[in-house]
């Protein structure tokens, strides 16, 4: 019984562990060796999905810290990824507050609004306040592919969400 409870707790922590692991590890979603412009941001998909579907498994504080870790690993000024993640989280919370029932199409569209503002904040801060030069087209490609891969992860996360049974009381 106790081991079952630990297992279910671990399952509930899955999205959070994945978010932290993707931020801190070397695993990247930039496949330049296969297709030079192919890159997408899984963290944004994780944040949007879980904040809009089950916010109790992904606290805002954790999103903030994952952003800080990502900044250190990627070499960006501290706080820029946190802000970018929190903007997605804000849009997801707003959509959650405004809607009762969502489908993949509505989620996909609202996710586009989320990543648009998120990447806009990211780009605006880096271009105007830091010495780092980043390419607008790279950001656009990243946004496009992140949006393109959203449905794929949506189905995976929806399935995962269905096996989280005790999450609501977490």
């Amino acid at each position, binding site marked *: 019984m106790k081991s079952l409870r630990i297992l279910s707790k671990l399952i509930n922590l899955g999205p959070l562990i994945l978010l932290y692991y993707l931020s801190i590890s070397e695993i990247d979603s930039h496949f330049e060796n296969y297709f030079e412009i192919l890159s997408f941001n899984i963290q944004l998909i994780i944040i949007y999905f879980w904040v809009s579907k089950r916010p109790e498994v992904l*606290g805002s504080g954790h999103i903030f810290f994952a952003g800080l870790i990502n900044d*250190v690993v990627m*070499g960006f000024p*501290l*706080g820029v990824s946190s802000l970018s993640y929190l903007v997605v989280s804000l849009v997801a919370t707003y959509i959650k507050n405004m809607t009762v029932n969502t489908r993949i199409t509505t989620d996909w569209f609202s996710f586009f609004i989320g990543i648009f503002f998120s990447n806009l904040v990211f780009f605006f801060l880096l271009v105007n306040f830091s010495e780092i030069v980043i390419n607008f087209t790279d950001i656009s490609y990243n946004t496009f592919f992140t949006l393109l891969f959203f449905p794929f992860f949506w189905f995976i996360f929806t399935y995962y969400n269905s096996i989280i049974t005790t999450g609501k009381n977490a």
Partner: protein
Amino acid sequence: MSSSRDDFSIAFRSALLQRGAAQKFSLVFLIIIASIIFFLDVYGFSFMKPIRSIINDGIYRVSLVASSPSRFLPHATSGITNFINIKKENEKLKKELEALKMKELNVEFLSNQNKSLKKIIESEESYLKKENMILSKVLIDKGSPYLKSIIINRGSKSGILKGMPVTDKDYLVGRIVETNYLSSRVLLLNDLNSRIPVTFGDEGVQAILKGIGKNRPILEYLPEEFVLEEGVDVFTSGKDGIFFPGTPIGTTAEGGEVKLFTESSQLSFVKVDISNKGSEDF
């Protein structure tokens, strides 16, 4: 109309300020904190440098441990695939051997090139005369669509300063852009922020090698109406006083691109040249 605006403002305010069941902080609080951290870091307040250095060193170490499974798997799978593809590799090596034989025939071209390079080599600050090299292990080489950089396991403790050149098998791969006590960040040549003065060809043409965020950087500021030949070796010119003259970088390719001698995604160990102590404040 006004009621929909009210709905929007209520929902937006709620999203910003409300704390859910398991949320300890409101979004607006975290956004303010993140903004403060960002501006403190960007405007380089003196107290932020050691804090950032400690955070960087700590997180790079944790990242190295966290990345070990992802490093082990490609090694294990590549060993098996190498064994399977040994025949293909043999054929490939034969082709490479033929190409090398062809290169041997090109003695005349090389002798001309040697003449121009001798001038560089004979200069006092020659790349070949340097001795102070530190071997460093690549801790993290996380690919990013925006920044092309790697983290190495040597920092200010080992005498590394900003701007120092980094090489792999004597080929230039980049320069130090961030130093911590135990680690440093190397900006690679193909990063959008990288600019290196270079020289190439028999006439010692000067140009700037500019990273464009893709695999191959490009040559800029070439002489007017200059026709770039392919396959010409490109070296650092040392005009900036940071890089040693004559460090090999790559060969010219189509459209002003330079094919680098080193594959940035395959770096395991690199050497940092610490002989130029005036590299700080780059």
